[in-house]
């Protein structure tokens, strides 16, 4: 075989760009040629290592936006972003319907703090349904909230899902029930994620509040408002809140 041709075939094999027949030819060849087999293995490993190293970039929050001069919609977004910065909350999340959504999150932050205070210290019954029945838990809460809920995994931060419960609303203006998911780390530290159906379908940046001894990051994303509460250092809690946001927006 022509040397350049065989080299191209090896790469095309690695890149999955061969017909079935060519693929069989190459497989036959590398079965007998240890040097070629070694190169194929090395190239495949290179691709895998590139993904392992750089794929996490895909999920990172960022603030890169097109900024055409004099675009009004863009200007308001930058104003909103500036407001976020003033609050000291992280950057990188598009802010829409800032006005329309401003009332609801205050309620959710309050509800999250109250739920945290009531249920996190609970030793024997922190949850109604445990994570052993996670599928059932998620289906049940989705049904009661009337929108498909997901329980994000916080394993990357060292927290395992304990389970969840349904909560009554605290505001007569908005009587829909809420879902509370509880997470725990090996040291017994707990985090709660309150999820509430939001009628106005807005999207907000992260906001922070401290209430009843619980620190809360809250935001609205699609049909749900979320509030992550915990007794963690603010930066740590924000990191986890971002992790939740990213998982729910793959």
């Amino acid at each position, binding site marked *: 075989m022509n040397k350049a041709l065989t080299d191209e075939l090896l*790469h095309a094999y690695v*890149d999955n760009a061969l017909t079935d027949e060519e693929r069989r030819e190459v497989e036959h060849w590398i079965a007998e040629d240890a040097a070629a087999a070694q190169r194929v293995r090395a190239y495949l490993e290179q*691709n895998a290592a*590139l993904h392992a*190293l*750089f794929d996490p970039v895909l999920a990172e929050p960022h603030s890169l936006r097109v900024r*055409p001069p004099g675009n009004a919609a863009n200007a308001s977004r930058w104003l909103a972003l500036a407001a976020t910065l003033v609050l000291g909350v992280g950057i990188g999340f598009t802010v829409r319907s800032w006005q329309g959504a401003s009332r609801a999150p205050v309620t959710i932050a309050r509800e999250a703090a109250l739920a945290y205070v009531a249920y996190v210290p609970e030793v024997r019954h922190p949850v109604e349904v445990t994570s052993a029945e996670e599928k059932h838990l998620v289906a049940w809460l989705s049904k009661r909230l009337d929108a498909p809920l997901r329980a994000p995994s916080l394993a990357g931060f060292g927290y395992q899902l304990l389970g969840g419960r349904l909560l009554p609303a605290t505001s007569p203006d908005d009587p829909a029930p809420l879902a509370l998911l509880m997470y725990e780390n090996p040291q017994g530290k707990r985090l709660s994620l309150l999820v509430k159906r939001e009628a106005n379908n807005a999207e907000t940046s992260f906001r922070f509040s401290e209430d009843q001894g619980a620190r809360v990051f809250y935001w609205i994303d699609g049909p749900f408002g979320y509030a992550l509460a915990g007794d963690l250092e603010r930066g740590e809690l924000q990191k986890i809140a971002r992790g939740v946001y990213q998982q729910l927006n793959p």
Partner: protein
Amino acid sequence: MAAFGTAELEAVVPRLRRYARALTGNREAADDLTQDTLERAWSKRTLWQPGTNLRAWMFTVMHNVFINGIRSARPTVSLEDVSADDTGAASGTSVETGVVLGELGRALTLLPEEQREVLLLVGLEQFSYAEASDVLGVPVGTVMSRLSRGRERLRILLEAGGTASERPANLRRVK
């Protein structure tokens, strides 16, 4: 008038950032490159042919911005000072993995830009050879020869540095 808005461009940002990070090996340089690419793509939006792949076109724009940046002799960014954090490997990655991946990052910067671009477009961004040829504006044969030389060189670089990664991670900090 182009058939896309800022939202369509911004949807490509995560992919552009990943490629830029691998290309420059540095978080800030990569985000600057991505930001410049966004501005350039927006200002040149009428040049995009509706019906063609917008993502591939954005990578073409990034390629041009990158090459122009190198030509205008901006200080070249090297991976020498890149920590595991800068390459994105920090969160959720063990120190040990960080070391191994750090070597890959460093080895990448030792490749000539033209080989690094092809290797990343094909191996990381999973463009076909024909698409990579469009993005870079070179014939498919050139893509193949750069890919072949790049992969082989990377293999040799990694094999040469392989002994270091077998040491316990705590004896060797990723710089």
